[in-house]
Structure formats: structure tokens, C-alpha cells
């Protein structure tokens, strides 16, 4: 009986030890988690960027971010104005047409800026990884609603 207890206890102890050590080793080596506070850390992990490449990407992000915030604000205002006009009118009006055109112009500007930024970031990466980055990000330019819905759905 004593031998059985000792062997089972040893099995549980060593099994748990193996679990924690292996988990720690895996997280430190091949399963390194991206930094939750750094939105660009995904790029570093996914596209295997060197320190220099990552620094360049971070600089591009820093330059782009203020403009991104302005664009975000413009899109919000344009959408809100359009929504209010649609709800305030019972039929198509010249004001709605103008607001639609303005919204389209804002969206085009946003797409151009974002695509420009994607190209710049891809050029900071090794060529093959840059191409892969563009393949992923082009969907964001062409099908932003779809991508956003995928992000909103909890996995």
C-alpha cells in the first residue's frame, strides 16, 4: 500500500513538474506571447522582425498614429452626419447626396492613407514577409467590414 501511494504521488508530482517546466520553456522559446500593451508586437512575432526592422516599423507607426486618430474622428463625424440626415428626411435630398459624397471622399482618403502606410511597413520587412503582410492587410483595405466583424466575434 505504501509503495503504491509513493509511486502515485511521485507520478503526480513529476507529471505536474513536467507540465509547468514544459509550459515555461514553450512560452519562452517557440510560443513567445506578444506584448499585450504593444499593438505592433504582433508584427514582430508574426513576421519575424529583427530589432532594427521592428524599430523602423515602430517609427512608421508613431508617424502614422496621429493621422490615424484624425481620420478616425473624421469618419465618425461623417457617418454621424449622414445618419442624422437619413433619419431626418423621408426621401432623397440634395443634402443627403452631398453628405454621401463627402462620406465617400473621407473613406477614399482613409483607404489611400492606410494603404500607403501598409506599403511603408511592408518595405521595412524582409521581402517575403512584406509580401505576406500585404496579403493579410489588403483585406483590411478592401473588406474592412468583414475583417472588423471577425475581430468583434469573440473566439
Amino acid at each position: 500500500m505504501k509503495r503504491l501511494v509513493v509511486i502515485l504521488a511521485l507520478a503526480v508530482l513529476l507529471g505536474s513538474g513536467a507540465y509547468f517546466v514544459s509550459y515555461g520553456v514553450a512560452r519562452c522559446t517557440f510560443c513567445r506571447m506578444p506584448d499585450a500593451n504593444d499593438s505592433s508586437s504582433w508584427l514582430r512575432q508574426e513576421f519575424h522582425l529583427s530589432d532594427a526592422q521592428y524599430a523602423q516599423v515602430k517609427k512608421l507607426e508613431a508617424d502614422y498614429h496621429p493621422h490615424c486618430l484624425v481620420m478616425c474622428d473624421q469618419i465618425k463625424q461623417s457617418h454621424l452626419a449622414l445618419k442624422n440626415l437619413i433619419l431626418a428626411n423621408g426621401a432623397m435630398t440634395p443634402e443627403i447626396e452631398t453628405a454621401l459624397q463627402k462620406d465617400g471622399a473621407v473613406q477614399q482618403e482613409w483607404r489611400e492613407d492606410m494603404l500607403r502606410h501598409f506599403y511603408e511597413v511592408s518595405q521595412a520587412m524582409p521581402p517575403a514577409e512584406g509580401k505576406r503582410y500585404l496579403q493579410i492587410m489588403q483585406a483590411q483595405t478592401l473588406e474592412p467590414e468583414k475583417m472588423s466583424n471577425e475581430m468583434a466575434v469573440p473566439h
Partner: protein
Amino acid sequence: MNPEHDQRLNALLREWQPQADLPPRFESEVWHRIALAQERRSDFWSLDWLFRITCQPRLAFAIVATAVLLGTGLAAWQAQRNYHHEMAASKSRYILSVDPFANTLLTSNP
């Protein structure tokens, strides 16, 4: 049944001596197997087999080694699963940080 017929049959059976070549220790082997089968049936639920296993060093080592392998495998699987989950969340954070439209959609449709 006819009792006279039975008596004759019994007498005949007693006289009958089959001439078959049985393997050596056939009878004892049969009894041994019967005993083993009965033992296995009765011991399984009393976990005696577990006691017997732990008395054998090789099997005891196999139990511990299996536990270690299971722990390692489970950790690798869990680490990989968490990694993919984290990477998906990290990708979403990145896209939200560079795409004002995605940001607008998510904030206007909570």
C-alpha cells in the same frame, strides 16, 4: 430414460480410456489458467492489479514516465493553444490601431 440402459452406459464410460497425446503438464496448465482467470476477475475492482504493478520496478517506472510524458504533452498543447489565441487577439489590436474605419465600426456597434 431406461435405468438399465443408463447403468450399461455408465459402465461403458468407466471402461473407456481415450488414447490421446496430450502436451506435458496439460492438466496442471488447465488448472493454472482457470485459477488465473478467477483471480483476474476478482482482483480488478479491488485494485489488486495496481498493487501488483507497483511491486514491479519496470511497471512502476512506466507509470511515472507516462505521467511525465502526459504532463509535457499537455503543456506543449496548452502553450500552443494559448499562443494562437494571443496572436489572434494581438492581430486584432494591431488592426484596430492602424485602421480608423475598424475602430469606428467597433466603437459605434458595441
